[in-house]
């Protein structure tokens, strides 16, 4: 038998497992029953034997109007879950007509400057029936409040709304980079959102605590779940410190992870993450409601593993990645389009991505039984190994004073960047095979015609903003923004005056600037 190989997390994978590894394995304690503590085998008793995961494809199109047409198509085709991609100015709390937004308007998603754009985005869609996932973080409160205001105009009350805001700012400092305010002020805003939603929009998932972006930045599976769960602990402590009861907000916490092509380790990672979180919530935070102990998660396939070379080959990678997510028990899944290493996806590529999930759901037999890998020698060994390594790394974050202190010391980012560099070196030296890149290459790549975003969108969006600033009652807007500043200085829930300002057609950028005036902006410790 050959030597052990190393997993992505640098843990050993033995060439043969013969069962000796599982001597003394306590299946009742480690696995339990699906749908019950510690939820290793899945958060629901029947998993996909009842119904498949939610196929939730993240997409955004230049203008609110185009996106709205697409959403109508999707809802008409039976989709119950919309997923909104916003452009970068919206994600950073800037308006389309600011200098820093130049060239970015409508590029990676839809531009939403004010309630008027939000009204267009959801025009004619039954907001009491669809659930809407919004990939928005630093300005999550702004977009959620606009959504609530538009729903109210449709006669839909807050308690009928379902959906998710990503709202996970800690991972922005670690990996994704769309942060605005410093960490402590960001946490205060998040805790205001928890409290506001508990009162006003109780069925909303108030945060999607994300490892995906860390993984894309280079995190190994162990780093991904350890840093994500350490961030989650920080959010829980913040909410508890604000006087919320654990079982009032914990059932609304959800997670978001990557699925890589390394299938076995991915499945083990999802299983380990569920077990760790259940124990943290029950034993450390004394959560009593089983829903508070469940790690429910969304998965997206690993964009960073897609190649610009021979792009159609990415279809195969995505199928394997998606399969791993399903075998690991995900609640919802986005499969990437094969052309994403070249440009924003074309419609055909986006359709093939969805078809990939439909094949896994309806043509394979992996949905016929719950947690098919349970009891496998290698799977249970890897789940244990990953759990132990992740617990150690969570402790390393706690030893630095928790996630925020560790972020301020640059700990997580440095660890992740070290992994990213190691992977880049391995690919460069061909120690790691990437098909089509460093092995099995084509002498000449075939041409590919990518999607183009119309630059006119930026011009149109700026014109609409100029009109809005002229038409509205600017004195009332100024007073409302002053009220936002006052709340931000004090301890009142800042979402209440924000909602009034947005109703009066203050822009997203203006609201974010009002908060910047009081809270300042985050300046990272940026080394390499």
């Amino acid at each position, binding site marked *: 038998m050959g030597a052990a190989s190393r997993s992505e997390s640098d843990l050993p994978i033995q060439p043969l497992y013969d069962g000796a590894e599982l001597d003394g394995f306590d299946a009742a304690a480690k696995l339990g029953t699906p749908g019950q503590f510690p939820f290793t085998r899945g958060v629901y008793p029947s998993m996909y034997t009842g119904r498949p995961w939610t196929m939730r494809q993240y997409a955004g199109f230049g203008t609110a109007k185009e996106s709205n047409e697409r959403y109508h198509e999707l809802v008409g085709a039976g989709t119950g879950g919309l997923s909104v991609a916003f452009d*970068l*100015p919206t*994600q*950073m709390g*800037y308006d389309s007509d600011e*200098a*820093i*937004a*130049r*060239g*970015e308007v409508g*590029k*990676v998603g839809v531009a939403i400057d004010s309630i008027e754009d939000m009204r267009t985005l959801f025009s004619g869609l039954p907001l009491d029936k669809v659930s809407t996932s919004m990939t928005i973080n630093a300005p999550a409160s702004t977009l959620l409040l606009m959504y609530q205001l538009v729903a109210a105009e449709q006669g839909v009350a807050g308690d009928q709304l379902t959906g998710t805001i990503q709202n996970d700012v800690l991972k*922005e400092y670690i990996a*994704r*980079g*769309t*942060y605005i305010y410093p960490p402590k002020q960001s946490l205060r805003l998040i805790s205001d959102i928890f409290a506001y939603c508990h009162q006003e929009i109780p069925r909303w998932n108030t945060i999607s605590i994300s490892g995906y972006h860390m993984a*894309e*930045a*280079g995190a190994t599976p162990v780093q991904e779940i350890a840093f994500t769960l350490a961030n989650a602990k920080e959010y829980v402590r913040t909410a508890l410190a604000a006087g919320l009861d654990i079982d009032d907000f914990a059932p609304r916490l959800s997670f978001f992870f990557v699925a890589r092509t390394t299938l076995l380790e991915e499945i083990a990672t999802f299983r380990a993450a569920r077990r760790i979180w259940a124990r943290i919530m029950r034993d450390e935070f004394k959560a009593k409601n089983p829903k508070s102990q469940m790690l429910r998660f969304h998965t997206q396939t690993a964009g*960073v593993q*897609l*190649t*610009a*070379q021979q792009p159609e080959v990415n279809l195969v990678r995505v199928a394997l990645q998606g399969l791993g997510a399903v075998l690991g028990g995900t609640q919802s899944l986005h499969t990437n389009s094969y052309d*994403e*290493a*070249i*440009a*924003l996806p074309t419609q055909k590529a986006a359709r093939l991505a969805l078809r990939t999930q439909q094949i896994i759901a309806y043509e394979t037999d992996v949905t016929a039984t719950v947690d098919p890998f349970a009891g496998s020698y290698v799977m249970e060994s890897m789940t244990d190994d990953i759990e132990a390594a992740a617990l150690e790394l969570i402790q390393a974050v706690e030893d630095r004073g928790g996630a925020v202190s560790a972020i301020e010391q640059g700990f997580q980012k440095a660890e992740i*960047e070290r992994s*990213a*560099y190691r992977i*880049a*070196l391995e*690919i*460069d030296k061909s120690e790691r095979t*990437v098909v*089509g*890149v*460093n092995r099995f290459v084509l002498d000449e790549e075939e*041409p*590919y015609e*990518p999607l183009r*975003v119309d*630059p006119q969108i930026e011009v149109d969006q700026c014109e609409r903003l100029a009109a809005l600033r002229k038409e509205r009652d600017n004195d009332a807007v100024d007073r409302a923004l002053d009220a936002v500043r006052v709340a931000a200085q004090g301890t009142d829930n800042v979402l209440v005056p924000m909602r009034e300002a947005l109703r009066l057609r203050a822009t997203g950028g203006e609201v974010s600037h009002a908060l910047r005036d009081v809270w300042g902006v985050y300046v*990272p410790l*940026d*080394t*390499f």
Partner: protein
Amino acid sequence: MKALETRKHPSGTATPRARVLIAKPGLDGHDRGAKVIARALRDAGYEVVYTGLHQTPEQIVASAIAEDTQIVGLSILSGAHLSIVAKVISLLAEEDAADIRVLIGGIIPDADARALEAMGVHAVFTPGADMSGIVETVDQLSVMIHDGALEYV
């Protein structure tokens, strides 16, 4: 511009070495590629300055001049490359710094890569570009800068 310093190449010969600014323009926060290339160049003996995220073209050009760099590497994954790079190139010309060479890394369709090169970009690297190839390009560019062997668009 200051004369280029030299360094011992693994081959034993001393080669000229440019100062490199790695920059993240615009609002895109994905800096994995930028950081990996910054490290690879540093490990190859280059002096590398990294701007951090969310830089305007004005800030990048000011840093390139203040840091006395001969090469600027821009990393852009948001699709905003055409307008951002055009702005950086025209600002470099306005600041009488058109001799600073520009390299691009990111998600850049082929036709756009040709357009960027026509604007005066020295080279464009897309996902899957090998790290040692990028370092080699910077090596060759350093020699060309040193020898004054470049034509400007």
